[in-house]
């Protein structure tokens, strides 16, 4: 017996029911289950589709598809970080390195002003605010997309939601680290601490720019590179 188109639809539903949200992960699992069911039918031709499917699913162990989904998430997060690094490298090569050094120097000099604390805080505030705005906009966009196509792609979610959300979190931690406790302390900080603050805030601006502007702009191209199946659907 062979798997029919209807069975394939059923299998997609089955993976969704077992907490596999993303189409890319579903597709691989559906093909696996379909192959295994056909194999099971060769040995037990009288088994119903549902029984053969459950028999095959049992082989995934008590956690079902969870391990597969988790491994995929780790893989995609790693890919996202690599993508950020790739774009970040540009900022340490000509011509962009000039801009990086100017930013660094500018922020360092700024610390001599009495209002330095406020400027630093404002930079933080703006980047975090932008991230929250983009986060909300993207999550609406993805929901709409899902309604239209019925498909979620893991990498797309990482690019447009998880990545930005995580960066916002990192920034909150950094905030505490870069800024002194009170407004006057900038003037009292040692050179090392000053340099570190300037480096971190420069890094923050570049990081924000990459996650909020560069990667989303190239999202479509990145998705096509990540998912060869993108062209089939």
């Amino acid at each position, binding site marked *: 017996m062979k798997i029919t188109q209807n069975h394939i639809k059923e299998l997609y539903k089955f993976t969704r029911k077992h907490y596999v949200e993303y189409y890319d992960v579903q597709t*691989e699992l559906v*093909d696996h289950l379909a192959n295994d069911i056909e194999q099971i039918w060769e040995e037990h031709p009288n088994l119903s589709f549902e029984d053969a499917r459950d028999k095959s699913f049992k082989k995934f162990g008590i956690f079902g598809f969870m391990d597969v989904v*988790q491994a995929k998430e*780790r893989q995609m997060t790693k890919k996202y970080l690599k993508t950020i690094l790739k774009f970040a490298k540009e900022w340490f090569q000509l011509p962009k390195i000039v801009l990086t050094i100017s930013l660094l120097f500018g922020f360092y000099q700024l610390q001599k002003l009495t209002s330095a604390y406020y400027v630093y805080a404002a930079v933080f505030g703006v980047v975090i605010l932008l991230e929250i705005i983009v986060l909300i906009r993207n999550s609406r966009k993805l929901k709409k997309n899902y309604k239209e196509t019925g498909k979620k792609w893991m990498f797309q979610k990482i690019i447009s939601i998880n990545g930005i959300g995580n960066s916002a979190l990192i920034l909150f931690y950094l905030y505490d680290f870069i800024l002194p406790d009170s407004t006057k302390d900038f003037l009292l900080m040692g050179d090392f601490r000053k340099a570190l603050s300037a480096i971190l805030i420069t890094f923050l601006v570049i990081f924000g720019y990459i996650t909020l502007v560069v990667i989303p702009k190239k999202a479509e191209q990145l998705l096509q590179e990540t*998912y060869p199946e993108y062209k089939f659907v």
Partner: protein
Amino acid sequence: MYQEHTKLLDTISIKKSKSLEVTGKQLHISTIKRLHINKMGNQKLYKGSLQTIILKLLETNDKMYGYEITQKVKELTKGELKITEGALYPALHKLEADGLLDVEVAKVGNRLRKYYKLTENGTKETANKLEEMQEFLKTMQHLVNPKFSLE
């Protein structure tokens, strides 16, 4: 004896009673559990080599899909090693993340199929891993069976 028991384990199912009859012998549940753990231990020995096994298979077969890998391993080891689905895909995804594997998708019949193949880095890493494996086997041979060692 051990092999006989593990084979039996494949064919018996544990009932509600605390002991169970296997070919006329009464086996207590603790014996069964122990045997089962032994069998699991056996699979654990292979587990650390899963990546090497996958890489080696892809080196000889150019491109393969997940299910094909499980079947091929079963066939080559005559059923001794069964790669579980819950371990195979995480391993494949990890190798892909490390840049050792590349993916290709093709429409086969009524469904999409994801093929894995070695990248350039993957081919290099396969050679390294196989070398490591040979070293490992040699060391184990020395440790476990010093009399019959080759050197």
